[in-house]
């Protein structure tokens, strides 16, 4: 792993210049998130044990020490070390709305998102698309083309998902590293293109 290896005698090492970049990967159950993360990165275990609080309950003076039940959610988490000081983190999260509490955190400062879709179950990615659109998080759609799955044209999919004309939709095979790489490249290119388009045109 990138941070392991040599032993350090002293304590302090500066983290100056270390850049960590988050990319989200959203999609329904069984759509290939784990496969995709594994194809392109060093996949690692990550659990998040989320407290389920009753939101109606007032927080009392012992804030932070409350009785609660928790739910454990396993995330797909992968790391791609591009350079010593530049690391991409991929977070695969379930697409259903009930997991949005996790996304809210993951989405902060994220570079962008990939919505992984299966043409047999396109509706599964509606919540994810909705989520990213509302929060203005740049995203692309990657259609995981399974063997034997019926192929639709990209424009049919665009129509079905009600996506803007400029939003990239790429075909992929999540099992293959090159294909997984292309997805990430397409996302970064899209974010760059958006950044260019967002250069202020109107004063103020």
């Amino acid at each position, binding site marked *: *792993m990138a*941070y*392991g290896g040599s032993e*350090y005698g*002293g*304590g*302090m*090492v*500066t*983290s100056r210049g*270390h*850049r*960590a*970049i*988050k990319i989200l990967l959203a999609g329904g159950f069984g759509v290939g998130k784990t496969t995709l993360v594994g194809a*392109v990165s060093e996949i*690692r*275990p*990550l*659990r*998040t*044990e*989320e*407290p389920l609080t009753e939101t109606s309950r007032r927080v009392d003076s012992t*804030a*932070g*020490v*409350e009785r*609660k039940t*928790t739910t*454990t959610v396993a995330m797909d*988490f992968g*790391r*791609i070390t*591009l*350079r010593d000081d*530049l*690391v*991409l*983190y991929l*977070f695969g999260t379930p697409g259903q709305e009930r997991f949005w509490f996790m996304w809210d*955190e*993951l989405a*902060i*400062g*994220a*570079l962008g998102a990939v919505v992984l879709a299966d043409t047999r179950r396109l509706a599964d990615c509606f919540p994810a698309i909705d989520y990213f659109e509302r929060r*203005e*998080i740049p995203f692309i759609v990657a259609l995981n083309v399974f063997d034997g799955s019926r192929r639709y044209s990209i424009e049919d999919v665009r129509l079905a998902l009600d996506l803007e004309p400029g939003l990239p939709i790429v075909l992929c095979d999540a099992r293959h*590293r090159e294909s997984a*790489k292309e997805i*990430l*490249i397409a996302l*970064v*290119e899209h*974010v*760059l293109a*958006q*950044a260019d388009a*967002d250069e202020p045109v109107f004063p103020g």
Partner: protein
Amino acid sequence: MASDDELWLDAQAGPVIRPYALTQGRTRHSGEAFDLVSTVTATSARVDDPGALAPEHVSVLQLVRRPTTVVDIASDVDLPLGVVRILLGDLRELGLIAIKAPVPMKARQVDKNTLREVLHGLRGL
């Protein structure tokens, strides 16, 4: 009873301790919030009272002798993120670690140079 317990005690079950027992029931860490990809680094401060630290605190401290992100720590020590955050909050309060926020990547203030470096890096994979 014991045999019932054995049924669910497997690798999938994780450590046999309710995670929040490690944190004395706390589910929120102290101090300001930190991001999942914030970088954590040990400071040069010394531990005055080793008894104040749980073994998990020590594990985390050892990991962050080199800058390590919050998620990498959670993955390496195999504890849920929420628990790791609380441990980090404790260590920060004791002055034993510094937590540095990641590069902001807001949609409209993207660091294009970083993006180009990412592209270059991905193409070279």
